[in-house]
Each structure stands twice: as structure tokens, then as C-alpha cells.
């Protein structure tokens, strides 16, 4: 079965990930800009990072037959540095023109501070100005509920196209508000601190397939790209067909990401269902 990994931090992973993902059906990964584990001090550091994910990483993925796409942004954790954020935002339009760059992300909130909110607004406005897709990170653990409400409030005040915005890391207590507001919602499968494969399938069974994405967001911390395959397996073991699984784990990413013409992977339909 063909799978798309919509949120994956490849530079933090080894080539073995690519090899195993390719062997298990992954045809494309998308790499949003991420926090490095420490707060970067210079805009040039971001510029080199954006070059790495927009120029070098596609070549590494291609060795395993996997398409690699990216997003660019200042991470919410670094938004307290207003000068840095401003300088990086000024440099981003150059990268938005790269052939594999899909949009602005992951922006969003971490502790929902005034500076983070300013940075989120600036990122979304830049994306809309350049007709880009947006990927929004919602906070972790105890900050998630409040942070997600704040993200929705911030977006309410902006002139946006909601169908071009994906709000990520939703869980049972935040998914409905995101979907009801007309955005795409992403479920991130982490071993401990986010959604689990079983809970993600519960959410899919409750809310249906429309405007829902599933990803592993595998990075340098405790995470595992194959939580996505665990979720596919759980979904199918509960009696859902292969085509239904394809709709969620391949075709939905194509539907959202395909709003950017650089994404040229089309939804697939199998003739015989198993």
C-alpha cells in the first residue's frame, strides 16, 4: 500500500529510516522546519537549514525512491527572539520559490506568549501574501488545549483561506474545534507524548476521513516513523478496507498538499479491494 508521511524531520534521522520506509510503502515525506533542540542565534543558521531541507535532503531521499518536500518557518520556541524572527521571515520568500517547498510551517504556538502570537500572525500573513499552504504546530501536553484555542482565535482575526491551513497535533479534545472551523487537522503519533495509533483510529472512526491527516513527526526525540504503519495496520485490523486506508494515508495528503501545484502526486484508487 502506498503511504505518504506528511510530517517527518528527516535531517534528524538516518538513511536506514528512508530504506525501511521505502520498503514499507512510503512514497513521499514532507519535512517542516523544526526546532534544533537549542535556540538558534543567527538568521544565517536558518538559511543554511532551509537550504539543507530544500536542496540536499531531496537528494538523500531520492536514493531510496522517496520524494522529499519541505516547509520553512521559524519554530515557535524561537519566536521570543523578535529580531531573529523578523530577519528569517524576510529570507523565507526565496525558499518558498524552491521546487520542493510546499509552504510556511511549522509555525504555531509553544507557550502561547505575545511574541509567539505575533510570530504566528506574521507567518500566516506571509503565507497568504505568497499564496502558500500553512502548517501550524499546536503545543504539547498541558499547553495543548489553551494553545489550540489561541491558534483558532488568532486565525479568526486574519484574512485567510481555511482550506489551505493544516493545524497539527490534534487530539480528542481539540480535533472537533479545528474541523468545525474548516481547517485540516493532523494527528501526530508519538510513543508517549502525543496521539497513539489506536487513538488516532478511534478519532478517524468518530469524525470520518474528511480533512484529517495522520503523521509520525519523527524527529531527534523519542519518536518513530513507523507509528504511521502501526496506525495503518490498526485501521485495517478493525475491518476497514485497503482503499479506505489509502484514502487516509495517501490520498488525503495528496488532497491537501495538492493545493500547491508543486505537489504532483495524485490520489490512487485500487481496482480490487482486499
Amino acid at each position, binding site marked *: 500500500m502506498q503511504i505518504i508521511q506528511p510530517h517527518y524531520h528527516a535531517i534528524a534521522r538516518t538513511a536506514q529510516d528512508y530504506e525501511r520506509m521505502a520498503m514499507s510503502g512510503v512514497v513521499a515525506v514532507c519535512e517542516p522546519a523544526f526546532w534544533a533542540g537549542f535556540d538558534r542565534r543567527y538568521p544565517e543558521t536558518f538559511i543554511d537549514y532551509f537550504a539543507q531541507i530544500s536542496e540536499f535532503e531531496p537528494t538523500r531521499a531520492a536514493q531510496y525512491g522517496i520524494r522529499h518536500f519541505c516547509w520553512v518557518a521559524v519554530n515557535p520556541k524561537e519566536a521570543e527572539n523578535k529580531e531573529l524572527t523578523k530577519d528569517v521571515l524576510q529570507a523565507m520568500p526565496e525558499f518558498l520559490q524552491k521546487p520542493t517547498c510546499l509552504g510556511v510551517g511549522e509555525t504555531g504556538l509553544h507557550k502561547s506568549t505575545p511574541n509567539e502570537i505575533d510570530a504566528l500572525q506574521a507567518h500566516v500573513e506571509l503565507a497568504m501574501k505568497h499564496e502558500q499552504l500553512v502548517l501550524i504546530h499546536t503545543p504539547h501536553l498541558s499547553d495543548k488545549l489553551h494553545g489550540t484555542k489561541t491558534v483558532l482565535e488568532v486565525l479568526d482575526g486574519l484574512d485567510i483561506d481555511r482550506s489551505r491551513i493544516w493545524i497539527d497535533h490534534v487530539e*480528542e479534545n481539540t480535533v472537533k474545534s479545528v474541523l468545525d472551523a474548516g481547517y485540516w487537522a493532523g494527528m501526530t503519533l508519538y510513543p*508517549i*507524548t502525543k496521539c*497513539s495509533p489506536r487513538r488516532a483510529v*478511534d478519532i478517524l472512526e468518530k469524525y470520518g476521513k474528511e480533512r484529517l491527516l495522520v503523521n509520525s513527526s519523527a524527529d531527534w526525540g523519542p519518536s518513530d516513523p513507523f507509528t504511521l504503519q502501526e496506525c495503518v495496520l490498526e485501521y485495517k485490523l478493525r475491518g476497514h478496507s485497503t482503499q479506505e486506508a489509502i484514502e487516509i494515508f495517501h490520498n488525503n495528503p495528496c488532497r491537501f498538499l495538492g493545493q500547491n501545484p508543486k505537489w504532483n502526486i495524485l490520489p490512487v484508487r485500487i481496482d480490487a479491494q482486499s
Partner: protein
Amino acid sequence: MMLKPHQILDTYYLEARRDLLELAALFDRYDAAVKREGSSPRKEEKHDILHRALLYLADSDSSEGGRTNALLDLFSEI
């Protein structure tokens, strides 16, 4: 040196949080299936055992190691 009480919570809180969420999701999944079937749930022994296990966990007066022993004894019933 063995872990202090607060270190135990610091070390294992997130795993316990995850496990409790999985348990909550299991009960939600069960309730959704009952509703989907459109009938009253029949007496389910495993469901009852899990509920009784939660009561043991909520008992703050359990003696040292008592909760785990109690749950193992409980799970021995089926």
C-alpha cells in the same frame, strides 16, 4: 541510591498519562461499539474486571505493593 517520591513521578508521569489515555480510549471505543450495535451491553466479564481494577488503583490506602498484587489476583479470575 533509590529514587525519591517526586523523582518517581517525574520519571514515570508521562508514561502513566499515556497508559491512562489508552485505557480511557478503550472504554470510549467499547461504548461507541455498543451504541453502534444499537442494543444494551450484555454482561461483559472483562469490562467488569477492568472497572474493578480501576477502583483498586483509586484506593489511596493500599499497602505497599498492594495495588499490583490486587490487580493480578483480580485478573486471575478470568
